């Protein structure tokens, strides 16, 4: 008798029939296991939530009064007929891969992940499994990231040059993860460090959790180019194009994202500078992570799924695609992130 698969793919998201739970579902369900606090993974409306302890404060902040249980990294938990544990994904602080086991068969859902150690997020931990469900936001060979130190040095040079010209620098970065990674990585001696309100909220939560974040000053009335000359302002992407930014006069702006690897996408942003900093695995990272799981079967999701699946099949994997709702090739996310104000 063939048993049904450990995880199945439904129109609400990834479902575990024997555990009765969903992983990062996009429609309301009874029980949701959440890999991390980004709004496309942690959605409102579920009856109960389970996440890592480290991810919980941000999720609570974003979703309000929800029924949320937490679990430590690596701690196994029995849910129905399966054993579940959360393992660091290296994507943002608190982010996890979710391991599901039933009688020796192991599936791992990667959530979003990156393999490079960013100095802030709990470093990615390869988890051995039979079936790996991997994101592939940057699953094309043109996406290869330079080491973090190199990119930080570039950002420092840009900031220092702007400061020398008497200009404020506005650096666009997603409010959870990227923003804090940057503030930790840059050279704080160059000038004052300011944050947009949306960034500061998340930063304060993570700081209170004990993540080693530097002191920052939230941009409020009275804070401008005169009060903080040569400052670096970390803000959600797009904020530099709103009236909020007027207080900084003739500022320089930049955006930190993996999409900045593509010149055409950079150029769409006009005069602003692009720094290639991603919280997702690059091409070598994806391939290495998949190899290290030892999985023979890989499902890909979020990103260039068709191309990446074919590539994996040629590498000898039993490879498939998990469709998600509203999924385009990942670049769509970038286009939206750049044009519209990002979510909280």
């Amino acid at each position, binding site marked *: 008798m063939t048993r049904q698969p450990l995880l199945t793919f439904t129109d609400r998201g990834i479902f575990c029939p024997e555990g009765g739970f969903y992983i990062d579902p996009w429609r309301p369900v009874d029980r949701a296991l959440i890999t991390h606090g980004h709004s496309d993974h942690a959605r409102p409306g579920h009856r109960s939530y389970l996440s890592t302890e480290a991810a919980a404060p941000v999720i609570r902040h974003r979703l309000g009064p929800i029924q949320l249980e937490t679990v430590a990294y690596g701690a196994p938990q029995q849910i129905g007929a399966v054993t579940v544990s959360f393992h660091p994904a290296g994507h943002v602080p608190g982010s996890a891969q979710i391991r599901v086991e039933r009688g020796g068969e192991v599936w791992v859902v990667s959530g979003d992940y990156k393999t490079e150690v960013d100095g802030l997020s709990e470093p990615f931990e390869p988890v051995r499994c039979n079936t790996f469900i991997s994101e592939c936001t940057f699953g*094309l060979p043109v996406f290869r990231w330079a080491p973090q130190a190199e990119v930080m040095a570039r950002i420092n040079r840009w900031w220092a040059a702007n400061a020398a010209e008497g200009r404020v620098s506005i650096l666009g970065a997603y409010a959870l993860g990227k923003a804090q990674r940057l503030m930790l990585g840059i050279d704080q001696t160059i000038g004052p460090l300011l944050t947009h309100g949306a960034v500061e909220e998340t930063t304060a939560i993570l700081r209170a959790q004990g993540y080693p974040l530097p002191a920052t000053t939230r941009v409020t009335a009275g804070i401008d180019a005169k009060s903080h000359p040569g400052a670096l302002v970390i803000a959600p992407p797009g904020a530099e194009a709103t009236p909020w930014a007027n207080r900084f006069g003739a500022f320089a702006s930049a955006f930190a994202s993996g999409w900045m690897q593509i010149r055409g996408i950079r150029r769409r942003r006009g005069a602003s500078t692009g720094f290639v900093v991603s919280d997702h695995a690059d091409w070598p990272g994806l391939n290495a992570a998949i190899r290290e799981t030892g999985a023979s079967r890989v499902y890909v999701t979020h990103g260039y799924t068709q191309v990446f699946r*074919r590539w994996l099949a040629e590498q000898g994997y039993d490879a498939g695609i998990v469709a998600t709702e509203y999924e385009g090739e990942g670049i769509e996310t970038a286009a939206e992130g750049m*044009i519209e104000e990002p979510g909280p």
Partner: protein
Amino acid sequence: MKRFARLFAALDATTRTSEKTSALADYFRDAPEEDRLWTIALLSGRRPKRAVTATELAQWAAEAADLPYWLFEETYPVVGDLAETIALILPPPDQAQAQGLSEHLTTLVRLTGRPAEERKQAILSAWAGMEQDERFLFNKLITGGFRMGVSQGLMTRALAQATGLPETELAHRLMGDWTPARTSYAALILSNEGTGAGAQPYPFALASPLEADPAALGPPADWFAEWKWDGIRGQLVNRRGAFALWSRGEDLVTDRFPEFAPLADFLPEGTVIDGEVLAWRGETPLPFAALQTRIGRKTVPKKVLAEAPARLLAYDLLEADGRDLRAAPFAERRARLEEIVAALPAGLPLGLSPEVSFMDWSTLAETRQGARDAVAEGLMLKRRSSAYFTGRKRGDWWKWKLDPFTVDAVMLYAQAGHGRRASLFTDFTFAVRDGDQLVPFAKAYSGLTDEEFAEITRWVRQNTLERFGPVRRVTPELVFELAFEGIQASTRHKSGIALRFPRMLRWRRDKPVTEIDTLDGLKTLLATTSGHVHPSNTGA
């Protein structure tokens, strides 16, 4: 190459003209002279012949990166630029080389026509010695389509800053048929001996589109009007021992229009005429489509010569008796031009572009409505006191074109764009109705805002019916109003028609696909316009 890469980075980092100019001027001061010369050549559209095809480059790069070719092909449309895709996938350099721009370009020139294996080895070894930014530029030099966000005017200004020479003088020195192989920086820029031949043209003066009410231009008596002819802008140079016809793109096209050769014997020595080359029969010009059969041909068969004989309609006189007249008022230049044309014997393929006289702006507006009957695109307005300026300068010369034709059509296929539109769906194929069929008839990729393209991109992803490589067949649902300048019969297209300059005028969110225009409507338009009857728009 590093110095050139630094220049490129500096140009790329800013949209301010003053910063671009100063970056370029610095380069013209401190880069090696050979590199300066090559940079001038590249920025003025003088690219070396393509030594390697795009496919070869792609295949060699995939091989060097140890990736299957299909993966390269899938990746390219996401990046939207071949040179960049290659630069991004190649493994890191193994040894640094310090070859300059001119050395790389000289190598490329030398490689042209060599066996594939030799070219491949040369390209692979060049890649192996370069960083990513240098590779990108190197590939761009090979693949063409290389824009550095620098117009020729901006380059000339930078050169003027670097050398202290006047801009107009430099613009003139840069015209013509020179190549870096046959001249040097010193000869071309500093002493102007670069071209050797005396057939050098002047920079063309260009008109700006008139969008405001012409009444705002002032008294009609200050203005000269003529038809805006729909041909190829050309400059005819007749000097001692030199006779040449230049296109606006500074291509030497003398040999493509052998019927002009007799003019060398009849025009006075030291004459330069600006005009429009048109296909001509009897007393009237033929539509642009007739001239199109002549473009792109190096030699002209007798049949084509007989079917589409060319004529030059003269607009302006830039040089007479060997003297540069460009600073003189248009009225004076035009009077001299009329004398020269009047003195020519009959039967030569050169005539005046006739003046369209008018007393007031409203009668001229009416005359303009008849432009299509005159086989013209609209009217040209030139201030009688204007100098023949270099390039585009607003205020003295205006083109007042007719409104385009329009048609409502539905999107059938979508493809991702290039460059700054990488991975946005911006290139669309459109269909009109033919009974219960939808017949594709035109492609267009401009006219919408970035926001509209982003919205359509999301829509395309959710409404893809089929994928053919980078092309998506989509649900025929989105209706657009296309504008176009002309229509002609075509045996190459299933629809039997081809449009001139189609572009999107508007996204018609209000129109259902059942209300788009029909192929019959377009065919009627084709029949009426080729019969020189004033057309009515097909659009509803």
